């Protein structure tokens, strides 16, 4: 297990997990969310290629109501 920083909080993930695994674990609807990995946006199609390492910073965002 290792610690990543997910949306500003500490989060434990399995060694070798990818962004895709993370999104699955969180049970998030893959449409309409976006993922930033160490300040780079990762297109949905490449989530499976990005393996997480200790200390990585991940932002998972969605679209909400706003003006």
């Amino acid at each position, binding site marked *: 297990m290792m610690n990543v920083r997910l*949306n500003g909080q500490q989060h434990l993930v399995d060694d070798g997990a990818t962004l895709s695994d993370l999104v699955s674990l969180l049970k998030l609807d893959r449409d309409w969310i976006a993922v930033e990995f160490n300040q780079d946006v990762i297109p949905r199609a490449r989530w499976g290629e990005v393996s997480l390492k200790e200390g990585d910073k991940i932002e998972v965002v*969605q679209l909400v109501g706003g003006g």
Partner: protein
Amino acid sequence: MMNDQPLKIGDHELKSRLILGTGKYASYEQMQLALERSGTEMVTVAVRRINLDRTSGESLLDYIDLKRYRLLPNTAGCYTVEEAVRTARLARAAGMSDMVKLEVIGDENTLFPDTAGLIEAAKILVKEGFTVLPYTNDDPVIAKRLEDIGCAAVMPLAAPIGSGLGIRNPYNLRIILENAAVPVIVDAGVGTASDASRAMELGCAGVLMNSGIAGAKDPVLMAEAMGLAMAAGRAAYLAGRIPKKLYATASSPLNDLID
């Protein structure tokens, strides 16, 4: 009904010139009804972290028919160029739209833009292929610069966001309009229907609003009012109003009176 050109923003075409925010409604159902009744074809959305502690429940997008409404993600809440740029990129990744309502806020009390940061962020995003619609102040110099660097529209505020003060400085707006080759869309400050009409009568290409509708006592009815007001103001602009005069001119014949 009148034959009007669609509003072109970059590659996009819109029949309705009203752009609506999706924030601050009492419920998603209310928002959905308001969107419908207003006749809008483009709605703004914000980008926010998924709250991992909350069971997600319903999502905004369950209530927005994407066949009917185009999404215009914003960078609301961003106070730096970097935040705004990152947020715009996330929005594109999430929403599959290349459009962004670019906000770089300069102050939390007025929510006026940081225009220098705005220009910098706009440059970056234009280069990355975004269709950038910047929320700006009503300064003609800034508006021109935003156009020059490739923004697809300029969106000057009528008054502070959520203030409902209406068009505080029609003079600046007129100058911006006379010098712009891209659509000028009034963004923020509209409080009631006549404010929207007035923006369109000045020659604006569109109006973007949120609080004026969501904060009304009856948001759905106000949405309808705003949709009508946009059409009214646009038609009046195209119809060419009478000049203003100090004295009167009779509308009934002056001759053939009885005596």
